[in-house]
């Protein structure tokens, strides 16, 4: 029992601070608003400390194997917490200018904390029930947060679309899980893997294959892979930008860590089944083709990022299709790069939006001359998104593609490379707007206001993007260590 509690200390801390903020904001009222972000930050930092102190060298399997502490979960928890920290940092300035969020600030941060807890639980879940519950714990707060701008019709639309499609996805996921339970008679992921190997279920049980594919459909919704991506553009566009950032980073992290757990531990031999591999390949191919080509005509930055994240999900799915050991850490490294560049791009976009009140790509015009530093960082993020050296995105793509080629999926990789060439156009378009197009708007808004905290976060993220190329071995080592326990 003690070891059970020790293993979930980080989650307890995050949940506790979330509840604390909720309660204090109720009882103290508006006066507490200024203190919320520091309290939340303290909570997250404490949780990071707890992961290092209690979990890092103590692999454990708690709560009847439903909660697993291994390298993967420890790394993922720290990764999630750092992402959450950055999002909280970005939100400090953002919420001040958002009339809606400011009103229910305690609840806002409580929900963000719950998303974080859900993601942490997801990365360490050991059975199907935990996978499902933690995915819900990630999803339900994001549905609410997406609709946080109450009178904004777009925000309502975003929330409603996300909610209906998300619930449908959860239902399909749950049904898939129940079929897997029916086929194997186990909910524990490791035991499922054992039973599948013992009874050779992947070659003779259609129940299991259909269950796995249905679960993949459910996860596909959450990671926004085509053809299950229809919620993404509208939700990204309509949600408050800080929540778009949350959805595109933490919620994606949750879905991917769940997918890694589910596929690589649960259905560990999924490579044996042609159907499952074929399904993943189709998902991946559709994602990066559709994502990149649909992004071309977009004029709204958030919509563009939605399609861009669909295509990135497609690239990561190549790693799942390859299903080798190398592919596992390649996906992990890609995720790190993806989170870093997405956070960066959104934090710059948030500043632009706050000053110029527009999310259009046009709003970026001319900022290359008024705000040289931020613009250079934005160039780094954009180039990194395309996957051209010398930035993080390149490292991520390189290893995923390498794993794909090694698994004899060269044709898929070639299509991937070609479509990422297409993506060059729309990413560079943003850079073109920043430097070669004059800003025609309110002269007061020409110079983008950049609070010190945001500039600090942006520069840290830009440095991270560069660091991933300068010392890739460190990140490869992290990735390798994170997956060795499988």
């Amino acid at each position, binding site marked *: 029992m003690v070891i*059970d509690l020790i293993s*979930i200390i980080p989650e307890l801390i995050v*949940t506790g601070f979330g509840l604390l903020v*909720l309660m204090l904001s*109720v*009882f103290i*009222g*508006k006066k507490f608003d200024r203190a919320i972000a520091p309290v939340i930050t303290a909570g997250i930092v404490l949780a990071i400390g707890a992961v290092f102190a209690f979990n890092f060298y103590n692999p454990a399997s*708690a*709560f*009847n194997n*439903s*909660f697993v502490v291994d390298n993967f979960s420890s790394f993922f928890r720290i990764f999630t917490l750092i992402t959450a920290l950055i999002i909280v940092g970005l939100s400090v300035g953002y919420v001040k*200018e*958002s*009339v*809606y969020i400011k*009103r*229910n600030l305690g*609840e806002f941060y*409580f*929900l963000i904390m*719950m998303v974080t*807890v859900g993601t942490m*639980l997801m990365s360490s879940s050991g059975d199907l*029930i*935990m996978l499902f*519950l*933690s995915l*819900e*714990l990630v999803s*339900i*707060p994001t*549905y*609410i947060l997406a*609709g*946080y*701008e*109450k*009178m*904004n*019709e*777009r925000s309502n639309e975003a929330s409603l679309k996300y909610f209906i499609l998300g*619930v449908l996805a959860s239902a399909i996921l749950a049904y898939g899980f129940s079929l897997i339970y*029916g*086929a*194997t*008679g186990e909910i524990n992921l490791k035991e499922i893997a054992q039973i599948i190997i013992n009874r050779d279920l992947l070659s003779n*049980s*259609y*129940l299991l294959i*259909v269950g796995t594919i249905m679960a993949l459909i459910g996860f596909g919704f959450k990671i926004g892979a085509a053809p299950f991506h229809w919620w993404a553009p509208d939700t990204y566009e309509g949600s408050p930008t800080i929540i778009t950032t949350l959805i595109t980073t933490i919620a994606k992290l949750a879905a991917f860590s769940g997918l890694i757990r589910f596929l690589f531990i649960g259905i560990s031999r999924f490579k044996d089944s042609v159907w499952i591999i074929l399904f993943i390949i189709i998902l991946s191919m559709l994602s990066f083709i559709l994502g990149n080509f649909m992004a071309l005509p977009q004029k709204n930055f958030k919509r563009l990022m939605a399609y861009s994240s669909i295509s990135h999900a497609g690239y990561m799915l190549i790693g799942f299709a390859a299903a080798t050991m190398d592919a596992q850490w390649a996906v992990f490294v890609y995720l790190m790069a993806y989170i870093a560049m997405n956070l960066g791009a959104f934090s710059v976009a948030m500043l632009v939006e706050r000053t110029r*009140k527009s999310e259009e790509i046009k709003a970026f015009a001319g900022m290359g001359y008024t705000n040289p530093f931020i613009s250079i960082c934005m160039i780094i993020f954009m180039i990194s998104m395309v996957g051209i050296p010398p930035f993080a995105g390149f490292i991520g793509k390189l290893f995923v593609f390498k794993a794909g080629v090694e698994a004899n999926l060269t044709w898929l990789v070639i299509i991937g490379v070609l479509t990422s060439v297409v993506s060059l156009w729309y990413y560079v378009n943003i850079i073109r707007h920043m430097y070669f197009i004059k800003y025609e708007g309110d002269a007061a808004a020409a110079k983008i206001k950049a609070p010190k905290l945001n500039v600090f976060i942006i520069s840290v993220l830009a440095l991270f993007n560069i660091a991933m190329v300068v010392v890739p071995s460190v990140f490869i080592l992290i990735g390798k260590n994170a997956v060795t326990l499988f």
Partner: protein
Amino acid sequence: MVITGKHILHSAFYLAATLLCVAMYFIMLRAEFLAAVEVLVYIGSIVVLILFALMLTRTKVGEDTNISNNQKVFAALTAVILFVSLTLVFSYSKIDTVAENATALKISSIKDFSGILFTKYTLPFEIASILLLTALVGSIVIAMKEKLQTESETVVGQKSIDAGNTGNQNNENNVLANQGVQDIAAIDKNIGSNLAGSSETMVGDVLPDTDDAKGEGQKGEN
């Protein structure tokens, strides 16, 4: 019938009937406790809650022909394909494994059930409770929204707001602006005691009921 019925009240009753049939299935599978829970929770509270929501929020309960649906063919096709493929899968695979497990677990009485729930599955249980709390907070946030509008109009530099809507309710809300903060506190305090009642009276008294329906609907979901 639930989804094709144009009268929302009828749909609710059809839903109750469907859920009753599901409960029957549970009894046939020898999961009596689950059947009882199904009846109690789904029919006893959720359907009744839907009816309550209808009663309290809609001025006119009647045929709602507004719901346009031009995807009927596509939806039917998908359903048929899914049904056929699942039937094929089920008929080709050995289902007896499921039955074995059900008997192997020996969850026959409520005592066994609770024993397992609080020992083997403690963590999922706790997470489910957190999940419900989150949903509760979220539904209150959504239900609370409408009344605090005036504040938004004093703040310069707001983002796009539906101008017509704010204009209409401007007068009512001026009075309420000051109470807003206290109301949040009051409602949150009342969660424990009587959620539906408290938020219903507070929000419902003053407001046109549109957003309230949304909040109530979400409570129903949960």
